[in-house]
């Protein structure tokens, strides 16, 4: 890793830390408690940013997969895979924090409504993406098959996003875009989204670096065996 990368990572780490501390302060101290749902509504400030990051992650996988199939450069495969991995982690968090919030507000942990079901399908699609890569006979085959899933699977992201507007669901509509939040709530949400986005960038940069390193080691091993 060269000096420029180290500096970039240090800046990202510092920025991420400051933003996350600010986010925690705003969630637990600054923002007023919502009148109807009570204190449990504060799950919203991490549940929504985590969902946003998972959408962003799968979008990056989508773009990087197209670029990999087009240019066949290993760096795009590394970015696509690292982003999908982070996307799966964050979708897992959405699927865990959602029911934890649902139980005290809806009285149930889970319901098979459109938003929840398509979110679960999204998680399964990208879990399959990671499995296909891992189970492939050779890494280039896994990268190629993965890229196809990364492109086709992205179809589910806008579907998940639009479910609450297209169908009647138990899940609330996107109140952020409908002016349903007070200024302190909106400000807290923006800071939380910024904090999680920086965390996402940091994880993808590290993850892609590791995957490139792995590919180089494989190449060197092959070259040495061929000597």
């Amino acid at each position, binding site marked *: 890793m060269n000096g420029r990368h180290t500096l970039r990572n240090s800046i990202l780490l510092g920025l991420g830390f400051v933003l996350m501390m600010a986010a925690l302060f705003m969630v637990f101290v600054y923002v007023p408690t919502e009148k109807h749902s009570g204190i449990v509504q504060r799950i919203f400030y991490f549940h929504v940013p985590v969902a946003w990051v998972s959408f962003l992650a799968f979008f990056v996988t989508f773009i990087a997969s197209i670029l990999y199939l087009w240019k066949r450069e290993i760096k795009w495969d590394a970015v696509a895979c690292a982003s999908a991995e982070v996307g799966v982690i964050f979708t*897992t968090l959405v699927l*865990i924090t959602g029911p934890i919030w649902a139980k005290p507000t809806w009285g149930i942990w889970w319901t098979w409504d459109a938003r929840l079901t398509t979110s679960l399908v999204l998680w399964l699609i990208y879990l399959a993406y990671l499995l296909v890569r891992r189970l492939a006979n050779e890494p280039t085959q896994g990268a190629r098959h993965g890229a196809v899933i990364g492109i086709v699977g992205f179809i589910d992201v806008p579907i998940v996003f639009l479910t609450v507007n297209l169908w009647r669901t138990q899940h609330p509509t996107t109140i952020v875009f409908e002016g349903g939040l007070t200024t302190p709530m909106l400000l807290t949400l923006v800071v939380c989204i910024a904090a999680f986005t920086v965390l996402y960038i940091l994880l993808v940069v590290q993850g892609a670096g590791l995957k490139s390193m792995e590919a180089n080691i494989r190449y060197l091993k092959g070259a040495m065996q061929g000597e």
Partner: protein
Amino acid sequence: MENLGYLLAAYTVIWAVVFGYVLAMQRKQRRLQRQIDLLQKSADQTKTNS
């Protein structure tokens, strides 16, 4: 402070999963570094022998 347990559970899960993922990445980095060291050693040996 009703439902505080749910709030704490949600935030604990988030940090536990993120922390676990970072740890797994660190472990992978160490494993790859070991492989690089081994490759370096074997390349040095080949150079000495030839």
